[in-house]
């Protein structure tokens, strides 16, 4: 990851895991975004993020500082996402999309300092369109895409977090990016 909370040395990262309040404050927004856009279910994402932070805090003694806290948290979150996706309950709710993310709600957070109302509208449409395209990706492609382009993790970090070999990560990234650009291009 380029910047943000991960640049810490081992001592700092361990103290970050010790302080649950600081952990929540620093990492929850980013983690919530990652899980929400990986799952497409904001309600379930909230639960998974809470569980992730709690697990990380409880397992802090096992954290050796070899990866960043962000990678450590993402790895836990991914395991919880996979567990969740295996359950029958998840498949059931997925069918009905009862708690699907309201993308217009997300798009409403586009900065309001655009030059005109038209520019603002175009920006919102781009956000909505991109989210719609991301949703069409396979779970692996979506996960690595969000990690790379939203969380700005590098390939090595994605590999550590997902447990995938670096080349597999690259392959998923290539396919995901190609699909996204193609669909965005087709819609523009």
């Amino acid at each position, binding site marked *: 990851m380029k910047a943000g909370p991960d640049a810490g040395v081992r001592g700092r990262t361990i103290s970050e895991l010790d302080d649950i309040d600081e952990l929540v404050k620093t990492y929850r927004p980013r983690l919530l975004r990652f899980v929400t*856009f990986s799952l497409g279910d904001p309600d379930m994402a909230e639960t998974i993020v809470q569980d992730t932070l709690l697990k990380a805090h409880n397992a802090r003694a096992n954290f050796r500082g070899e990866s960043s806290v962000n990678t450590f948290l993402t790895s836990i979150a991914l395991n919880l996402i996979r567990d969740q996706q295996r359950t029958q309950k998840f498949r059931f709710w997925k069918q009905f999309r009862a708690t699907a993310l309201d993308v217009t709600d*997300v798009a409403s*957070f*586009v900065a309001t300092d655009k030059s005109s109302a038209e520019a603002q509208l175009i920006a919102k449409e781009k*956000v909505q369109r991109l989210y719609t395209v991301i949703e069409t990706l396979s779970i692996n492609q979506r996960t690595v895409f969000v990690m790379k*382009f*939203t969380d700005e993790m590098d390939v090595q970090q994605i590999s550590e977090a997902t447990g995938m070999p670096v080349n597999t990560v690259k392959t998923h990234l290539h396919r995901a990016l190609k699909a996204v*650009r193609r669909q965005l291009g087709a819609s523009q």
Partner: protein
Amino acid sequence: MNTEHLSEAEVEEALLGFASDDRTQHAKTCAACRGKIDDFKETMALFNEASMGWSQAKSNSLSRDLAGHRTPFRVSMTFVWSSASAAVLIIAGIVGLGMHQHEQTLTAATASGRQVSSGDANEIASDNAMLQEIDAAINTSEPSPAEVYRTTSANTSHTGSVRN
């Protein structure tokens, strides 16, 4: 430097950060190729900005919820102390009230006692007089049933004393 425009695959390589130095250099100088890269980056930046804004807002509301869930533990200590203090106060109040009521009862009893002695003095006096009359009548009119045994009982008592 290769002046050919980037292919779509090369644009993707550039976006992923895997492009060769030569191709990266071209993208910097070629407006058309740079435009393709910047266009995607701009869309991603908009998406990231909006999604982080949404997530931050959501997280803030969750923080309030979490605070609501977590404060019971913190409050529970306060609650325990408050409850203990309240319990002590209640007990002290009950004890104080009980003592006060007891005093009131005693006062009432004393007062009622005074009322009885003053109010029914005549009745008591008449009762006493009647009882004395009855005693007198009993003593004088009929001999006691034990009268016939008086001698016997005196002998028994004497015999008993001899025996002892």
